[in-house]
């Protein structure tokens, strides 16, 4: 994980690109459907979630692809360290350079959409719970898609359907808050999904990496 973070630090442009993509996608909607404040406040939570999801997806291929090509992944598979450790470390590093900055940036985008303070908070909270799930599920898919021809397209077909439930509960939480309902059921479900993903997905990532380096 330390190595991945240091590598990311050498290339800050990738993080900035992810964030710029997020800001751009979120800014395109008002241009496309008109800038009425009521309409924007209505669609804001969903748009921010979709934008964050796509931006997180954009950063996915980077988790394993470079390590696969230069042989680092082989060396990791042969390392005496427990494989769950480095798999979890790589996914955590991916979240720190994609999900975390997206979460921190979401209130700024939310302001553009005229969301209230409470909604901004719930939106950020749902992203904080949801983006690690995206990194975990996406990591497993990225490991599976390694070495396949047209890997990017395959990755989209594998990962995006898996992201749907996360999107529904994540955007649902902020929307519930915006319409005056309690966001807690959505957030609890997200938290439960995060725990399930934390327990189950790293093992799947290890299995997928083994298949890919074979």
């Amino acid at each position, binding site marked *: 994980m330390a*190595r991945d973070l240091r*590598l990311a630090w*050498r*290339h800050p442009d990738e993080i900035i690109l992810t964030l710029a993509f997020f800001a751009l996608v979120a800014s395109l909607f008002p241009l496309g459907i008109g800038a009425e404040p009521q309409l924007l406040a209505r669609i804001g939570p969903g748009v921010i979630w979709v934008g964050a999801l796509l931006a997180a997806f954009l950063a996915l291929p980077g988790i394993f692809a470079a390590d696969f090509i*230069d*042989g680092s992944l082989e*060396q*990791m598979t042969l390392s005496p360290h*427990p494989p769950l450790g480095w798999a979890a470390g790589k996914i955590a590093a991916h979240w720190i350079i994609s999900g975390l900055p997206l979460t921190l940036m979401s209130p700024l985008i939310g302001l553009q959409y005229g969301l209230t303070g409470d909604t901004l908070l719930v939106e950020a909270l749902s992203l904080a719970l949801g983006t690690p799930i995206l990194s975990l599920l996406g990591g497993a898919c990225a490991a599976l898609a390694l070495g396949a021809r047209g890997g990017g397209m395959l990755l989209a077909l594998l990962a995006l359907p898996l992201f749907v439930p996360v999107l529904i509960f994540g955007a649902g939480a902020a929307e519930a808050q915006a319409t005056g309902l309690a966001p807690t059921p959505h957030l609890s479900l997200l938290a439960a999904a995060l725990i399930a993903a934390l327990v189950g997905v790293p093992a799947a990532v290890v299995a997928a990496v083994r298949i890919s380096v074979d």
Partner: protein
Amino acid sequence: MRGPNGCGKTTLLRCVTGLTRPDAGRITWLGQPVTEDPARFRGDIAYGGHLPGLKDDLTTEENLEFSLRLRDVAVDRDAIARALVAVGLDKRRRLPARRLSAGQRRRIGLARLSLDPALLWILDEPLTALDDAGQAHFVELLDRHLARGGLALVATHHNLLPPSGKVRELRIAP
């Protein structure tokens, strides 16, 4: 291990490491199937394949440090500096690996081997891209490794005759 191109040298090496699952047969290490305690076996081997496992953006020193940390080998900075001097990369230790030539990148691999206490070296064409001095240095490392009771499984087209150790040649028919 010798044999013509495409006869399966690399495949055999990868099967021994566990990267590739063999269709049939068993790999045993110290009398035990490697599948029984794979973590211990992985601790005992150092693998050098066709892919260097180096990061272009990290410096020579960082690459060496990270690959040793991955192998769970604790080494201090002095040992790393000495190993880099031995392979002639001490002046390039702060250069990113992308600025190194193919032979110099191979030399990082030599430095890694010299610091790794693994019992079994599994090396695929370790002499490729190395100049005469580099090849001589590799033979010296191999010799030292054999002298302290180590074992090496090497696929190569070069004449590799370490002066001390016993060499058994495996020929693979196409």
